[in-house]
Every structure is written in structure tokens, then in C-alpha cells.
């Protein structure tokens, strides 16, 4: 390859959809024909993400799940959406902002789904039961907020009702089965009462419906964004707008370096201490010192993939 003249010109390649002047086609189906023949929103989500028309009970289950994801009071997504709206933006910005709330803690469907997949694969390889593998998962992921089990739904039956609905529609599969074992394993290990939460209930059911962790992450975030959009509009309707530079931050809420004079510019090379470190000990000391300053980012340590644990690719 390499030179331009030997290669095909750029095209938008897609396995999802195409359109021509007279029609729009997703996964082989003309979208207007789909809705004319009575297929609805949830059906098209299945077609778009999974290239298949769902069973009626699958379609019903997706509606059920999306209703539960629609609204959650003053959640992070609603809060961000409201904050964005305070600047008197256009609605698309507030809607988009709410989606940005989703990460590996809030609505951690990708992280949770990939974890389930990893352990289910391991169970299959090692011939372990779901119960055994759930116990291993719980042992290896202590303290994680993304296990689908917490104290959030002890009095609210909504999460358990999701699994019951999946059972009644004959849609419970290995993900729901596995999550049930995870709940039992955590309940056995925990001193505090815990139970299935919405991450576990919605996530496992979506996976049993055939959605990938990424698809689930997107669908849930978008369902919630509808609710967040209502919050953005209400913020505009009921709360004052905020202009640049308006908000004060009282000193009693400040715990950074104490007030100090700004050194004269000409003296700076004499006064300042450069940030470079020359030895590992100096580096470590500087690292720990920097981590004490909130907002510097040094106190945040993200786990990245360990190449030693990855399967080697032949020839590389």
C-alpha cells in the first residue's frame, strides 16, 4: 500500500446502514417499511445493534428496561444537564453533557459487562460452575462499585422485579444466572445487607437480550438522557441563569496553599524550585508531595492493561 494512486478513494464503509436518495436502509431493512409494518422504536434498536428483528417478548423487555433507566431524580446525569443549561446553551449541549456523566462508576455498563464476559469465559475454560466463578469474581474484585450489588436497592424492589420479569418472559440466560450467583456470593461475604442493584439488574438482562456491554452502555445513557433533557428544560424554566464569573467561592471552603505574595518576575529563577527530579527517590517524594494538592491529578491512579497479562500475538 502506501502511495495514494494505488489505493481506493475514501468511502464511508459501514455494516450498519446506507442511504440513497429515495431510502434509508439499516441492516438490510428499509427503515420506512419497518415502521409502516408496525415495528417500533425498540425493534429498530435491536435491528441497529444486533442486525435482527427481536421476538415480541424481547422487544417488551427492552421497553421495560428503558423505562426504568429513563429517570432517577437529581442524578449525576440530571445534575450535569442542569449545570450546562444554566449557561443558556442550546438543548443539544445539555443532552450531550448528561451522556458524558457515564463512566466506569456511574452507569458502568461497559466495565461491568466486560468483567462478566471475562469470568464467564474463564468458567467455561476451567469447567467451573457459575457459583464457583462468582465466588472467585467477588474475591478478586473486592471494593469494586461495579459488581451489580450494593445497598442501594434494599427497600426498592425495582431491580429484583426486572429479573422476575425476565424470568416470566423466559428471557433469563447465563448473565442473569451468573449475576444471581454474584449477589449470593457478596451477601455471604458482606457484613452489611446488600442486594442486586440497577447496574446488575439492567446490565445482566440487557446482555441476555444479546446486547454487548458497549451497546448497553450507550442505550442506558441515551435512555437517561431523555430524563436529563427534561431536567435541563426545568432548570431553564425555574432557576436563574448564571453568567461567566458570577459565582463566588467562600474562603472557608478553600484548603489549598495559604495566601502568599506573587514574586517579582525578575526574581523567579532565583526563587522557584524546578519540578524535575534526578533520582527515583526524589521522583517518588515529589510524586507523593504533588498528590497532596487537590486538582493536580497526582492522587488519581488509573489501572491500565498490564501487557504481561495479555496473550502474546504470534510474530510480534
Amino acid at each position: 500500500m502506501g502511495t495514494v494512486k494505488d489505493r481506493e478513494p475514501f468511502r464511508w464503509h459501514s455494516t450498519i446502514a446506507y442511504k440513497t436518495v429515495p431510502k434509508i436502509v439499516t441492516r438490510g431493512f428499509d427503515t420506512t417499511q419497518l415502521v409502516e409494518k408496525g415495528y417500533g422504536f425498540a425493534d429498530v434498536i435491536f435491528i441497529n445493534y444486533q442486525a435482527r428483528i427481536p421476538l415480541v417478548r424481547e422487544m417488551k423487555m427492552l421497553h421495560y428496561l428503558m423505562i426504568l433507566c429513563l429517570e432517577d431524580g437529581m442524578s449525576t446525569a440530571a445534575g450535569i444537564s442542569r449545570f450546562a443549561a444554566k449557561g443558556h446553551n442550546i438543548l443539544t449541549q445539555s443532552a450531550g453533557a448528561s451522556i458524558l456523566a457515564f463512566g466506569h462508576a456511574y452507569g458502568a455498563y461497559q466495565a461491568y459487562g466486560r468483567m462478566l464476559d471475562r469470568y464467564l469465559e474463564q468458567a467455561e475454560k476451567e469447567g467451573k460452575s457459575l457459583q464457583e466463578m462468582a465466588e472467585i469474581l467477588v474475591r478478586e474484585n473486592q471494593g469494586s462499585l461495579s459488581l451489580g450489588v450494593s445497598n442501594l436497592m434494599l427497600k426498592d424492589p425495582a431491580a429484583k422485579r426486572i429479573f422476575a420479569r425476565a424470568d416470566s418472559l423466559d428471557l433469563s440466560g447465563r448473565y442473569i444466572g451468573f449475576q444471581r450467583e454474584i449477589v449470593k456470593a457478596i451477601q455471604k461475604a458482606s457484613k452489611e445487607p446488600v442486594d442486586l442493584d440497577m447496574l446488575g439488574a439492567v446490565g445482566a438482562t440487557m446482555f441476555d437480550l444479546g446486547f454487548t456491554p458497549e451497546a448497553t452502555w450507550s442505550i442506558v445513557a441515551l435512555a437517561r438522557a431523555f430524563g436529563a433533557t427534561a431536567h435541563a428544560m426545568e432548570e431553564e424554566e425555574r432557576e436563574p441563569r448564571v453568567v461567566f464569573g458570577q459565582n463566588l467561592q467562600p474562603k472557608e471552603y478553600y484548603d489549598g496553599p495559604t495566601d502568599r505574595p506573587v514574586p517579582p518576575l525578575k526574581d523567579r529563577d532565583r526563587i522557584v524550585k524546578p519540578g524535575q527530579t534526578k533520582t527515583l527517590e526524589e521522583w517518588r517524594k515529589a510524586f507523593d508531595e504533588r498528590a497532596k494538592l487537590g486538582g493536580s491529578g497526582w492522587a488519581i491512579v488509573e489501572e491500565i492493561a498490564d501487557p504481561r497479562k495479555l496473550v502474546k500475538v504470534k510474530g510480534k
Partner: protein
Amino acid sequence: MEREPMIKRKTAISYKTEEKTVLRGYNLSDLAEEGYTFCDALFVLFQGRIPSQAEEKMLEYEMGEFLEHSMSPSAASAIATMGGRPQLPAAVAAGVMTFGGAHGPGAAHGYMLNKYLERARVEGKSVKEMGKILVDEYMDAGMPVMGLGQPQHVDGDPRAMPTHRKQEELGVDGVYLELQKAVEEAFNKRREAEGKKTIAVNMIGAGNTALAELGFSPNAAWGIGILCRGFSCACHAIENMKKGHAWMASTREKMIQMLDLSMIVYDGIPDRPVPSQEEREEYAQRELEKGEYKKWVL
């Protein structure tokens, strides 16, 4: 786990206790258990009411139809954003935030319809008369009439007329559809009189009219439209994440990639030497005086 409210606000939308989440008075879990659809729930969210079956069907139709539109600015944004391999929500949000004044200006169209309907009422004119006034006012001012024409579907958006028809078939038509159709008729009559080709209604004109008729505010309708499209934007982003290449610039691909260097056409100021710091002040002063740089200012 700390469960204090993140922000303290009075809200008429929902509340959440340890026992339940309540949306506009309805327990969300009960709504789902009863067999209501997500589209029903959107009526509850934005309008505080459960819709009739025909209304629910109309929203299902519209959302099912609007979800995928292959390569539009929104899908392209989602794909391009995913090229940098951020977390997936960034690409989904980028897709949603692409919607604005040109791509799916739903709220603006809704506000336009509301304004002219109110004028018809106050000025004692029929909806049809007001449709012509709207068109004349916009065209006389040289402004595009929203809801008409689509740059890719040059013979008419294939989704639009069926949406109008579906509204009538389900009996969920009213003043909005009447006004929109009057606008389409007056617009094309005027174009024909001017010897121009007629232009068909697009999905803002058809879809947004239906949403307004269903009782959604201009912004709620816009929110429904853009978020509905967000589902397919996410799907396109995931395809790039799982099956495409990051960066989209590899020269090892058979096809030239979107960000291949050969895709860049530069027609700005020709290459020029960087002045030394000693020359800088005089150079900068000369540029200011000549003022040629102004034609490049963005």
C-alpha cells in the same frame, strides 16, 4: 454509600426514595410492570400524562424511523470522535451535540409553528392563510423556510410524507399538520411561480410537526429527535471501535483513510520563513500595517 442529594432543587419531574423512583406521580417500576412502553414513558416525562394508544403508536413510528440515517453529520461526528479512542460516551455525546441550526433544527421549527399559530389566532386568520404569510415573510426576508428540503434526499426525504400520512391514518393530526401542509403548499406554489423546482418536506417538517401535534414542546421534541438518533450514532461509534482503526489515517489500508494526509488540501498562505526574534517586532509591525492577514482571520 452516601445518598444525600447531589444538588438541592425543587423539581416537578421526579423524586426518589429508598423505596421507589416516582416520575410525575407514577412509580417507574409500576409503569414498566403494567406493560407501558418507553414511548409511553416519554409522554409521562415531558407532558405528565399517559398518551392514547394512537399517540403512542405515532411516537413509536417516528422514533423507529428517525433512529438511523446512515452518514449524517451526527454519525460522522460519533465515528470521528471514536477515532481518538476516548470512552464511548464521549463519541455518543458528540453525535448528539452535532445537532444544531442546520442538522435537525427541531426546536426552532417548533417555535416557528407556535408563533404563526398564535398569530393566526390573534389576527383572526385561517391556518391556511397563515401558512402563506409564514412562507412569504421568510422568503421575502431571504430566510430559508424550516422543514423543507434535504441535501442528500434531493427528490424528497423518503420518511417525511409517510409521517404526514401516518398522522392522518392514526387520527393524531391537528393544527400543526394543517399549518405545516399549508406552508409546504404555499412554498412550492411560490417556487413554481418563480420558475423553480419544488422542494419536498423533510423530517423536521414532518417529524417535528407530528411531535408538536402529540403535545411535545419544541425543545422536548428536539430532545426526542436528537437522542433517538443518538442510538444509531452510538452503534456507528462502536463499529469503529471494534472493527475500524483508531486515528483513521493508516497508509497500510487498501482504501485511503478519512484522515490520510492526501485528504488534506491547503490553500492558505504559502510557506514562508519564520522571522528570528531579532526581526520579530519589525516583521509584526509590517504585517499589521499591510493588513493582508485580515482576510485569513476566522
